[in-house]
């Protein structure tokens, strides 16, 4: 691997015992640990990037007889598969991370919300959970974990839609506020963290904030697990330091003919070759939940865009107007421009429409459609038009 990209090994390293880390961590002062988590700069690894320590603090400070920890394993972003690999390789770390969170915020119950497409992993995970539930008891930790299966809707990765789904309702996002840390599952304070975030929280208990924060940048501390796919010779999962330049990433993973990289999946941004040098992977540049998809010059960006829009058009919960109708209009719109039924300048109207979707949609799904749409239309206008 080229030296400009730093590969690290926290998540997948097997030289540590999750139970030991957990046992030590729960002996610490809770506020002290939350402060350490805040100091570490860890932000949610699902894509939105909310500071994890703060989230835990809110949930801890919420007064309630019951609280919950939910591990969001509804990994549905196109091009993302790192949570699957984490759950296959180091499930106990994830579960210990959940237990740690439960201990800190005062929750006794944890749920793994596993996407339906991963149901084949359920049995193995259940066995591990059974073991861990016993381990928790052995260190006098009143915490247990259960698996809940998703039903195959992308929007259920959105935390309030996930809660609705867990409550047996249709997976549609709630109005916020209140946020789940104040009122979530069964209207009780709930922490919903991504698989990777929970694992990092446990790792920070092990290595401390300073070692973690030494990696990455000011806004994007530490490292992150990336899912690399597309036109690359090395598809797979890699844990890399945050803040790298996209050009360095492409040097490492590209096939020599990379024309664009979709950073962050369907809800992320498309970066064209001419911007590789100026693009930083992280919250100061382009953040990602992990998906890095490379396209070489044989790819039609019209098809790529159409695919993403199809995806949103199917996965929108269709509750709010901008997202439901906007997605349909964007698809029909680029088709009409391509076929000549609408003038090329109609694309400008569509870009404006996508901006409305961004600011007026109810949840992150509709709000992020414009990311891919604008970045692809802006950079590959000719491919879309002709």
């Amino acid at each position, binding site marked *: 691997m080229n030296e400009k990209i730093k590969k690290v090994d926290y998540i997948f390293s097997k030289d540590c015992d999750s139970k030991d880390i957990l046992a030590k961590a729960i002996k610490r002062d809770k506020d002290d640990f939350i402060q350490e988590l805040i100091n570490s700069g860890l932000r949610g690894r699902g894509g939105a990037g909310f500071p994890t320590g703060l989230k835990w603090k809110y949930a801890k400070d919420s007064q309630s007889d019951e609280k919950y920890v939910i591990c969001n394993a509804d990994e549905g972003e196109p091009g993302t598969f790192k949570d699957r690999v984490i759950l296959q390789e180091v499930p106990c770390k994830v579960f210990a991370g959940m237990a740690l969170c439960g201990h800190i915020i005062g929750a006794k119950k944890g749920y793994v919300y596993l996407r339906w497409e991963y149901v084949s992993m359920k049995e193995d995970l259940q066995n591990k959970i059974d073991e861990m539930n016993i381990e928790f008891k052995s260190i006098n930790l009143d915490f247990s974990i259960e698996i809940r299966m998703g039903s195959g809707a992308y929007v259920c990765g959105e935390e309030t839609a996930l809660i609705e789904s867990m409550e047996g309702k249709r997976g549609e996002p709630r109005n916020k506020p209140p946020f789940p840390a104040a009122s979530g599952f069964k209207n009780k304070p709930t922490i919903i963290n991504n698989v990777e975030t929970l694992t990092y929280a446990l790792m920070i208990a092990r290595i401390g904030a300073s070692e973690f924060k030494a990696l990455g940048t000011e806004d994007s501390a530490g490292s992150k697990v990336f899912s690399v796919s597309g036109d690359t010779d090395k598809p797979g999962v890699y844990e890399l330091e945050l803040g790298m330049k996209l050009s360095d990433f492409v040097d490492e993973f590209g096939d020599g003919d990379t024309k664009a990289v979709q950073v962050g999946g369907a809800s992320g941004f498309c970066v064209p070759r001419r911007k590789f040098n100026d693009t930083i992977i992280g919250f100061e540049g382009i953040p990602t939940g992990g998906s890095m998809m490379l396209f070489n010059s044989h790819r039609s960006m019209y098809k790529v865009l159409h695919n993403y829009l199809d995806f949103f058009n199917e996965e929108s919960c269709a509750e*709010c107007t901008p997202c439901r109708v906007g997605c349909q*209009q964007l698809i029909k719109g680029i088709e009409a421009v391509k076929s000549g039924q609408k003038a090329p300048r109609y694309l400008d109207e569509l870009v404006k429409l996508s901006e409305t979707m961004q*600011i007026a949609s109810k949840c992150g799904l509709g709000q992020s459609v414009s990311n891919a749409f604008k970045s692809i239309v802006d950079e590959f206008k000719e491919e879309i038009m002709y």
Partner: protein
Amino acid sequence: MINLKINNISVSVEEGTTILAAAKKINIRIPALCNHDDLCVAGNCRVCVVEQKNMKNLQASCATPVSEGMEIFTNSEKVRKARKHIIELLLSEHNADCTKCSRNGNCELQDLSSEYAVGDQQFIDLVQFHEYLIDYSSPSIIKDDSKCIRCQRCVRTCDELQKVAAIAVTKKGCEQKISTFFDKPLANVVCTNCGQCVNRCHTGALTERSYIEEVFEAIFDKDKHVVVQTAPAVRIALGEDLGLSPGVRVTGKMVRALKQLGFDSVLDTDFTADLTIMEEGKELLTRLKRAFVDGDIDIALPMTTSCSPGWVKFIEHKFPELLPNVSTSKSPQQMFGALAKTYYAQKRNLDSAKIVSVSIMPCTAKKYEANRPEMRDSGYKDVDYVLTTRELARMIKQAGIDFISLEDDKYDSFMGNSTGAAVIFGATGGVMEAAIRTVYEIVTGREVPFDSLNITPVRGMEGVRAASLKIEGCVEAWKFLEGVELNVAIAHGLTNANEVMKAVKKDKTNYHFVEVMACPGGCVGGGGQPIPTNPDIRQKRANAIYEEDMNMILRKSHENPEVIKIYEEFLEKPLGHKSHELLHTHYTERNNY
């Protein structure tokens, strides 16, 4: 109190108030489609988005509570652009055949698009890419998905207000729609036909099935004798669709208008409402006697009312094991229908086959009720056509009648006379009050011990109300009721009915008699009433109902001279043989989806 600024105007409101409500307080109107005073917050349509200072994204004002120091802009450049886009998007998925639509002129989407001057659609018409089937299966409600803008008011109405959930959101993405269990036709699912969804639909996606043409055809047919009956709650709401404010009583004008429309006889459902009290009251006393005196443990108590057809269908679907509790008395509409083609025909010397019986109801479920196979006891279809308040207003407009300037007129006779007890059937608690006025007097020989006969404990808009009345000083025949505490309950809106029946099922109540109205507020808030209907409007209509009662000379059902006469001439006595034949019915267990 929370202090905030909206369009630079300071306002203080209570914590928990939405931005939308705070704006309303200082007379700033924010358009909102999915919002409704009867329903929970949804935040679906996004038409009500506003800009909050220092926030990148817009906020749905109907769904966002105020916070201290908030600065809101309801008409900024960003808001205007987004709102216009959203309205255009809604129109692009809406089959905008406005000139042919029954909601033309009373459509919130139409108003909004004209307000925002959404002229030539810039976006692509999406209706063409979908295959829409119009569901005509129900005799009450037509569902046309091509008009639906997915605000989900109907879904929330059916679930929250009515606990029926016959319609729900299905599928996702571009295939999302409002549908039924396995997309079955409305007629085959748990729908109670209450029409509350119709009343809350912005557009023509859910409308009542109209029979105006059929009625006009009958009127113009010289061979036919067309009788019309009008329900109590029509007279206090009809004016709203004809240019008057909510709560204005138009009984006399309505009667004159009906005569001008050409009905051969304009009669009153209130007459059979009085009759219902005689039958139902006697039925209640009989059940109490069997339970208390004969010790018959199989007697189903509490007895519930049966005049609301939405309620009847609800219990048939949801609590079939409690069907024995439902009074066997037909609703006033159906009693009227059965008598129109028997008693009335005899008295007027008419051929029953040539009588067309029409009713004007605040209700869509009445259309279904009239179509029930068991409602043919006269040998004919007892009620031929049921029109809603809204349809009557439309007929009056079509006929070019200047409604507001009409002189009052009086109902025709035989079956046109009524009492105040019948009028109050139109408000929640009214049937109970009317029943108590009569039953108490039968049992004790004295008037109910309430000021001006107004039994206020059973009135009001509380969802479930319970009251007790100690019976003292009984006449000889009813001595067994001496000292008995008569426990009654009133529920309106099927969600409340559901709660009461759950308790009844678990045997956790001490009620003897329960009044249930399917619609919130009772018939004043019926699914066939003018649109809009909301808590404020329902209250005004209910007030008008009680005013009407106070203005009547006779206010107890058993004092209605025509009622006394019909028993003498035709029916003999309450629960008598003839009554059983014509005025009572039975119920059917139905599926629970």
